[in-house]
């Protein structure tokens, strides 16, 4: 065994240990201390981590600015909640059902809109988000309108009913880890690199033989699938959903997380999600300054860190500049 492989295994073990410590041991201690409120905050932070990761795949890695992500989150939540209450399906069926509903909705939206470029695509997703919100609000006979859907049955897996807050938290943590791991693998595969090439120059990518439209639809489908999964988890862990949770402001919140963390960087997106969910809780004394803090953090991070906390594009730009000068065999001449 060479030294490289040893280092790799060691870093894996350290990562796993840190993950277990942060995701399992700390909440256990909190629950023993009776701070159940923090576990609820952690639940919503983990759900938003999945959302930020899925948003990062579409907006960060493939460069398609999506302004209606909360709508797919909502479709997943409603699919899971209605399947659980009206059809009485168990959790292990409703969870993938929420994801599939979100993914199918995403692909249906993507099919006509994917040929739109830059701002037109954002506008179309914004319109779709509003259409879905209006539908959830007004289709009273199916979605129960503004009253929302209540799930009375707790999460049941393998015949065990997870009623305590901590056990629900552990389920969410495991699901979030799996989802984020899949998204991480996807962004670091051939697929992810093809998406990066779309973001940098889609005409060039097309010239190299990549089917741009197909790839974008795939990326959008995967991203909305995970948004739907997040929605199903929300529906089951909170037990109550209403159209208010899936508005434009939620889409902006998810976008802000990705922007603060750095477009295209998955760890950045997760950190942004944690920051924007936990910051208002830490600063609770400020009361209704919650959303003001979100707006201010978003603006300051765009102004001061245009690449976000862990921007990916800066590294690519740097490499491109290096290669440019190497190819041209001369010093770069600035525009100024």
């Amino acid at each position, binding site marked *: 065994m060479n030294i490289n492989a040893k280092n790799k295994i060691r870093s894996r073990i350290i990562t796993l240990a840190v993950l277990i410590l942060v995701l399992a041991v700390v909440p256990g201690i909190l629950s023993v201390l009776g701070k159940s409120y923090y576990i609820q905050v952690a639940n919503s932070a983990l759900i938003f981590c999945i959302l930020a990761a899925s948003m990062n795949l579409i907006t960060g890695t493939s*460069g398609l*600015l999506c302004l209606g992500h909360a709508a797919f989150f909502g479709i997943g939540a409603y699919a899971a909640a209605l399947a659980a209450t009206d059809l009485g399906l168990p959790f292990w069926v409703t969870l993938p059902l929420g994801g599939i509903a979100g993914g199918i909705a995403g692909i249906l939206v993507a099919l*006509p*809109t994917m*040929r*739109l470029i*830059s*701002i*037109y695509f*954002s*506008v*179309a997703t*914004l*319109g*779709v988000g*509003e*259409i879905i919100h*209006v*539908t959830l*609000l*007004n289709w009273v006979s199916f979605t129960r309108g503004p009253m929302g859907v209540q799930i009375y049955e707790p999460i049941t897996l393998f015949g065990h009913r997870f009623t305590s807050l901590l056990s629900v938290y552990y389920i969410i943590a495991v699901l979030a880890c799996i989802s984020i791991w899949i998204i991480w693998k996807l962004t670091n595969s051939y697929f992810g690199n093809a998406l990066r090439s779309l973001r940098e120059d889609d005409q060039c990518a097309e010239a190299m033989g990549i089917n741009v439209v197909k790839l974008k639809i795939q990326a959008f489908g995967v991203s909305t699938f995970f948004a739907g999964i997040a929605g199903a988890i929300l529906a089951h862990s909170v037990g109550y959903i209403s159209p208010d949770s899936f508005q*434009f*402001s939620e889409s*902006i919140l998810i*976008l*802000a997380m990705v*922007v603060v963390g750095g477009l295209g960087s998955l760890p950045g997106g997760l950190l942004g999600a944690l920051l924007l969910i936990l910051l208002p809780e830490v600063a609770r004394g400020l009361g*209704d*300054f919650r*959303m*003001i803090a*979100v*707006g*201010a953090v*978003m*603006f300051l991070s*765009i*102004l001061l860190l*245009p690449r976000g906390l862990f921007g990916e*594009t800066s590294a690519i730009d740097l490499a491109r500049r290096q290669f440019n000068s190497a190819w041209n065999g001369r010093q770069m001449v*600035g*525009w*100024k």
Partner: protein
Amino acid sequence: MDSYFLMQIVNGLSAGMIYALIAIGFTLIFGVLNVVNFAHGEMYTIGAFAGLVCINSLHWPLALVIIVALAAGGVAGVVLEKVAFKPFRRFQDEASLKSRAMREATLLSSLAFSILIKEIIQHFFGAEMQTIPAGYLLNDPIKVGSLTFSTGQFLILGSSVVMLGGLQYVLFHTRIGLAIRAISNNPLGAKYVGLSVDKTIIATFAVGSMLGGAAGIMVGLYQGAIFPYMGYAPSLKAFVAMVMGGLSSIPGAVVCALILGVCESMATNFMTQGWSDMVAYSFLIITLIFFPQGIFGARRERV
């Protein structure tokens, strides 16, 4: 023709005029900066709240209230440009002007400011609806033959026509209008012949936001309700009108805004209030899929 339908058309036209006034601001700013200003709906809210302050604590006459709302909108637009847009125009070179990252950074900063303005207003005035004193409310009925209209509708239609005329004069008979048209046509060329890009952009924000602010107070006086989130729905409809009109054509935006307003008020005959919002968003999706350049795009001169 049924008199009820005629009334619905007038209702729709007055709603459409409000969308048109907001859409013009969007269109002017998009024409000059090539960026969608997502905080434009907040100019509408600021205009309404400035008018509310004048009414509630200063008891000024109606005409003065509208002028104050106009001025508040303009000042807010200039401040917004200085704070949210100026910092992102640090790099004036061609590569940065064309880069998508710069455009998206500006778009996101305007989104951030839209959240900030809304929340700050909510912090000072509260989230609940503010009511306008009865003396200022513009819904006295006016009978025209067998039809009944309200004074607010006439105010909105009349003053919008005046404002559109004023805008046309500014754009085509003043130096600043010439500069706005030049920059929206070819920013780099206009810069090379010595136009001040910064001054023109500030002027554009002032003009566009004034129209938005005036629209805000007029809707407030007509409907009698002012609240921090009031800007969201009309500005989204105005945005739809702008996209339908082709993003950078003012006549296109105005015509589409009127069509949108009339279609929406007609739709309330066939469906409930909540579903009528669907009309605008379906128009948006249909336009984007079948006319990606907008219905009045490409064929007209920009701005």
